[in-house]
């Protein structure tokens, strides 16, 4: 009589428990409601481009209603919206942007070829929601440079803002090295004597072949 000829009943039971655990895993596998449509690499490209930026002087065409393919969305909260907003804008605060109804709405707008222009008080405030909407596939979303605060200053002469560039942000306003030196005798960039740590980023070649598993 061999071990083999014994009925592997216990083995079956354990195996079935194992299978049940895996089935539970499959069933409870949470499926995210939203999915990223672009990779982190593409998001970095997006951050580097100004393709999604909307210039304040372009607003004129919307306000004159010569363009009707743009929907203005104010992502500030209702209180701020109530105190003043760009005419024709509707108020969807940032958190609600991705609610079920609004996602549906955004999808409909996308299908209709409409551009969704979002703005906050300034560019940075709207940047996060803008990047998120782009990342989940709404490539018709644009963001207003300067935001509401800039609009508020220039609202009567929007056309003139063409020659103004104070809404461009992201640039150095100072020659940091020069300013920071101050009266310093040390040529160290900021006076603190610690050595700077350098990060060495090894550029690993992308290897698509090993995508699966671990």
């Amino acid at each position: 009589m061999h071990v083999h000829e014994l009925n592997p009943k216990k083995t079956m039971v354990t195996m079935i428990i194992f299978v049940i655990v895996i089935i539970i895993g499959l069933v409870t596998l949470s499926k995210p409601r939203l999915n990223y449509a672009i990779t982190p690499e593409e998001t970095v490209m997006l951050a580097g481009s100004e393709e999604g930026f909307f210039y304040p002087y372009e607003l004129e065409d919307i306000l004159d209603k010569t363009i009707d393919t743009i929907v203005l969305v104010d992502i500030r909260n209702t209180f701020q919206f109530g105190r003043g907003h760009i005419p024709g804008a509707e108020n969807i605060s940032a958190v609600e942007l991705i609610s079920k109804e609004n996602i549906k709405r955004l999808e409909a707008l996308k299908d209709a070829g409409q551009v969704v222009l979002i703005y906050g008080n300034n560019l940075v405030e709207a940047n996060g929601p803008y990047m998120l909407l782009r990342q989940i596939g709404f490539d018709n979303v644009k963001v207003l440079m300067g935001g509401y605060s800039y609009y508020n200053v220039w609202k009567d002469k929007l056309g003139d803002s063409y020659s103004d560039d104070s809404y461009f942000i992201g640039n150095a306003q100072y020659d940091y090295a020069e300013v920071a030196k101050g009266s310093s005798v040390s040529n160290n960039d900021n006076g603190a004597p610690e050595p700077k740590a350098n990060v060495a980023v090894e550029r690993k070649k992308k290897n698509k072949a090993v995508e699966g598993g671990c």
Partner: protein
Amino acid sequence: MGPLIPQGIIPMGWDFVIALLIGIAFGFVLEASGFSSSRNITGVFYGYNFVVLRVFFTAVVVAMIGLQYFDYFGWIDLNQIYVLPTFLSPMIVGAIIMGVGFVLGGFCPGTSYTAIAIGKIDAMVFTGGLFLGIFLFSEFFPFFEQFYYSGNMGSITIGEFFGISNNLVTLIFVVIAVIAFYVTWRIELRVRKNMTQYKF
């Protein structure tokens, strides 16, 4: 979610308690499967008892499948799992030495502990030898220090080495295991018929 301790879900303080519990489960399964008997173990080399192959392959296959599924479910992060780094030449040499030691001693370290537990003198001698072997290794370490660190390939996985996904590796492993189970069953039947005396 997992692994729990590296993720800080179970505090480090429980580390040793868990080590003990896991060890108990491990030792229990080893002993209950018959790994406390060296003649049982070495049967795999002579064809009269393939218990080692059966337990070993089943365990590897179950754990492999489980890990891949758990990773898929997000229960465990395979990137945080310790993947044994590959040092090509020292590993080849080490495995060959262990292979000879296996046939001679009839135990491997884990099984020898369980064999000591049930009172096998040969297992005690084996563990003593183990102690001596590691001592000798550390004493003569400077002589082969360079060799010891040579051929480092990092934490490379089987899939990465062959350029396929680890899921496919798992499937191949399962198929090989099933074939092995069948073949060894046939071999065992034939060998045992010819064995006049077989007592554990």
